[in-house]
């Protein structure tokens, strides 16, 4: 358990930051409806009645509240993790577990040690019932962040019933997402793939449909289009293993095949005229060895100029 306990100063800071934000909900919703942050409760409620009946307005209020509560959450987390843990990193088995990626993440650690934060349902805060409450135990038109599903409690010291219920609501949505959305996405994928079954990549690098109509002019992913290889611009790695690459690829054989003329000349033209199409659209790299993308050329020039400096 001592892996999860904050130091006394850390705990104090957490309490202080959360205490300072006690009337955050009131000030945010007051400014949202156009009143001063410390407006009268009755005036605010009469304005809020309209907001709560209008789904679009309620969404905007939710976003305003969420952005402020999220700031509060990050403020608390920044003040506590990881330096305010009673046991510091290598000796703290929980943070060792999350940091090394063995199991769990930063979210789990912060939910246990600091706070749960804003609970969300379908990208919104907890929905308000017709009564103007989010749960029967709250006052109608309660503007506090707590009534909107903001949880300042943590798992280590326990969650109150209202907060627990909100957390369960958000947790169920996660379950529904995985259960329902996988089946829907799977069927959707099956449908789209059915429409794509006629596609093929041709030898001129175009993707064409069953009737020969062009769908994409150039198809490329890692293994198919060498200009998109991830190691192509890792020049430091190539330089470090220079002899190894020489053994593997035998670039001398390519020297006679490389066209050192056409592509650079086109590139020069391109520099003068910004509206021109890229070099690769004129010189297909699978035919004209030496034709490279502008981006690659730029990076190569940078590296070679830094070498010869």
């Amino acid at each position, binding site marked *: 358990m001592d892996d999860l306990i904050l130091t006394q100063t850390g705990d104090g800071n957490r309490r202080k930051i959360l205490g300072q934000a006690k009337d955050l909900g009131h000030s945010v919703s007051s400014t949202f409806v156009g009143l001063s942050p410390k407006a009268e409760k009755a005036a605010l409620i009469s304005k809020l009645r309209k907001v709560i009946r209008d789904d679009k307005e309620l969404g905007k209020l939710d976003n305003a509240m969420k952005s402020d509560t999220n700031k509060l959450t990050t403020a608390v987390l920044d003040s506590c993790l990881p330096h305010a843990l009673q046991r510091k*990193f290598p000796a703290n088995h929980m943070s060792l577990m999350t940091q*090394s990626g063995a199991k769990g993440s930063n979210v789990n650690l912060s939910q246990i040690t600091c706070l749960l934060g804003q609970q969300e349902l379908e990208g919104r805060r907890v929905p308000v019932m017709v009564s103007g409450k989010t749960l029967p135990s709250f006052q109608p038109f309660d503007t506090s962040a707590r009534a909107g599903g903001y949880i300042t409690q943590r798992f280590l010291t326990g969650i109150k019933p209202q907060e627990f219920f909100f957390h369960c609501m958000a947790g169920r949505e996660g379950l529904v997402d995985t259960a329902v959305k996988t089946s829907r996405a799977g069927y959707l994928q099956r449908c789209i793939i059915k429409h794509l079954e006629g596609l093929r990549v041709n030898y001129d690098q175009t993707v064409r449909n069953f009737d020969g109509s062009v769908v994409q002019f150039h198809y490329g992913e890692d293994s198919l289009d060498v200009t998109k290889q*991830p190691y192509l611009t*890792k020049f430091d*790695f190539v330089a*470090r*293993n220079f002899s*190894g690459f*020489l053994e*593997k690829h035998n670039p001398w054989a390519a020297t006679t095949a490389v066209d050192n003329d056409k592509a650079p000349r086109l590139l020069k033209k391109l520099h003068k005229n910004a509206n021109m199409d890229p070099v690769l659209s004129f010189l297909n790299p699978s035919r004209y060895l030496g034709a490279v993308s502008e981006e690659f050329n730029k990076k190569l020039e940078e590296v070679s100029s830094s070498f010869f400096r």
Partner: protein
Amino acid sequence: MKISTVLKNLTRGKSPLSMRGKAKIPQKAWRGKDCEESGIIFESGELVVGVLDKNQFGASEFSLVHVSFPHFSFVTFDCFISDTLPHPGLLRTLRP
């Protein structure tokens, strides 16, 4: 067995692998301690500094496993990631 031993044996008679990488645990996690645990240095097939973790073996970009593919021939790469030795006949035909 040391990883350097494996690498050196696999690249016997060829150029060894050199690379730089980053460990999963960042430098700032080792607060106040002057250590170089977060960087990985392979120099000429020898592990000089660093811990090999998820960032080197897992599905992360530019990990040791990924880096070794463009460097090795695929036969050598196959031996590196599995526990088999290359078939002698294969080596004769593929090695120069």
